[in-house]
């Protein structure tokens, strides 16, 4: 059987983490191809519903990346993300989904290497968790 290759969705804020991902690309930092980025202006605009929708639809992991605390382009947007995402993790746990399938981290525009590390680590972790039990479940 082929090795499990997870599908991962990432939300990156336009100003820091998306730019950090760009820098990783420009620097040719290699990482597993499991991650698919949706660009948002601020990590604080990521609705919990998006995460729940992705997970319930079978996406194996969701990564939310924002600017470091204190560096948010919108001043305090990421403070909200920092409070909101742990709550979403609680919800996931509550319904029997491993909360590790959602990860929140901070990557600045100058942290191409950190982006690479976060992605690589997260892909490894989700591989360990195995396929999302919601995969293929039809509502």
């Amino acid at each position: 059987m082929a090795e499990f290759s997870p599908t991962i969705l990432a939300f990156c804020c336009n100003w820091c983490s998306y730019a950090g991902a760009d820098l990783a690309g420009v620097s040719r930092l290699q990482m597993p191809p499991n991650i698919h980025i949706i660009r948002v202006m601020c990590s604080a605009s990521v609705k919990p519903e998006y995460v729940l929708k992705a997970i319930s639809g079978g996406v194996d992991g969701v990564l939310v990346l924002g600017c470091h605390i204190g560096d948010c382009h919108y001043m305090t947007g990421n403070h909200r993300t920092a409070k909101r995402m742990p709550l979403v993790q609680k919800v996931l746990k509550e319904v029997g989904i491993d909360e590790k399938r959602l990860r929140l981290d901070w990557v600045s525009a100058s942290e191409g290497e950190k982006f690479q590390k976060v992605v690589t680590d997260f892909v490894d972790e989700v591989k360990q968790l195995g396929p999302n039990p919601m995969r293929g479940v039809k509502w």
Partner: protein
Amino acid sequence: MARVGVFVCHCGLNIASTVDIEKVVAYARGLPDVVVAEHNLYSCSEEGLSSIRKSIEKNKLDRVVVAACTPRTHEPLFRKTCELAGVNKYLFEFVNIREHCAWIHIKEPLSATDKAEKLIAMGVAKARLLEPQKETESSVIPTAVVIGGGLTGLTAAASLAAQGIDTHLIEREEKLGGVLGDVEVISPEFSKSGDLIGQLVKELKGSRHAKVHLGAKVVAVSGFIGNFEVTVEGKGKQEKIPAGAIILATGAQEFMPKGEYGFKEMPEVVTQLELERRLASGNVPRRAVFIQCVGSRQPGREYCSRICCNASLKNALRIVRTRPDSRVSIIHRDIMSYGTASERLYREASDRGVVFLRYGLERIPKVVRKKDGVVVEVYDETIDEMVDLDTDLVVLATPMVSREDARDLGKLLKVPLDKYGFFLEAHVKLRPVEFATDGVFIAGSARWPSSVTECMGQGLAAAAKASIPIRRGKVVVEAITASADPDRCAACGNCVIACPYEAIEIVEEHGKRYAKVNETKCKGCGTCVAACPNDAMQQRGFTSQQLSSMIDALIKSTEEET
């Protein structure tokens, strides 16, 4: 039904050497509403752009997807092409298959090709739901406010006033000049700082466009680009100044050592600015030892303050030029005499017998009181020996640190600071002297310790940038702002609290209470969108439907694969 065109870029071999372009294009053709999928060697070239434009016209496309590099650099270009072809620029969607795919999966061409397909499926899904947007314009108050009356602020204010723009200069002290007021001569040409400041003050006082507020403090700032209101308090009265643009030029201050090297215990140990004051009053020491990097480039304050080496070189030269019998040493960790003019000062100092000794953090110098004066004991790395330097004066070259009220000011202006308390400009290369907050500009040592030349250059740059909206008389607001659907909105006020810009208020119109977004105040972060429990709040270009459709597309393309 939307008519989507997908244009996949080879970017020469940058994308094409990893991603199978032909396969991706064939895949894109099968996506919903895609009427045409093409590829270009270089989409951003003149040829690529005109081929996209022709295809839009020929195929009557009303949604355009380009799969290429990053929107952060190339989105404006393709948006322009859409406009030229008669398609609203907000009907364009960018898919990044270079930085986020080809370049980071070089050794996995098959997986990279699959991923590119998924990313394009997501982009097309969003594009189908994009809506044309109209950018709004708002008027600009033709007045500028400059905060800080040091060299940078003076330069900026004088430049604005000379352009005929009404300018208010706010200085919290009773006199203008800032830190430079304590500095008699300027490196590297040894001109008098008094002449420079005097000239700028004269220009301002003689201008009918400039008003100087001394002993005045900014206590409140409200509004947004074009329509700020700056509240200034001083001498027991308050004044509200309406302004179109604000320049922040509050500078920095000298770091005061806390007991290091016998500072405050021994009268012979002084800071650089104290030496400046002494030299200005004709009090020139015969023997002096400068210790560089006191309180900088070490854990807790890692940065290089940049101007201290040149200041020490300048003052060492002032001593040796005045007193042939002098003995001056500079103990340093690296001499940063950047720039050709300053490098000449370093050579001159060397030639005139100034001794340079290098120390490391592992063995820092010691200042010791002896019977007949003070001695600096230093371990010289170069000769691997301890050296004792008898001296009359020890000058501690301490870094410039941020003003103690910088954070408060940052909060008033809603602009960010770095971990050292210096203000963060929007982008060092792409948007120098600008803040990410439109209409607010940053210059001088408030941004980072800067030399006289740099302060003036940045002051002029900020004045030029600030004059753009004022001269134009109007500003365009990018159409990524949020708005609430009054029918869904329950007027709960979550968004009002969430908004970092105080752009939302609950209004009552036609008997219905709902959240209304002030479009010019809204910066398009979308924080309110996620705070809305009713899905009433939507950000243009990032609606929940659009983003959900991208998630659906990812799920669907993954299912098809397995």
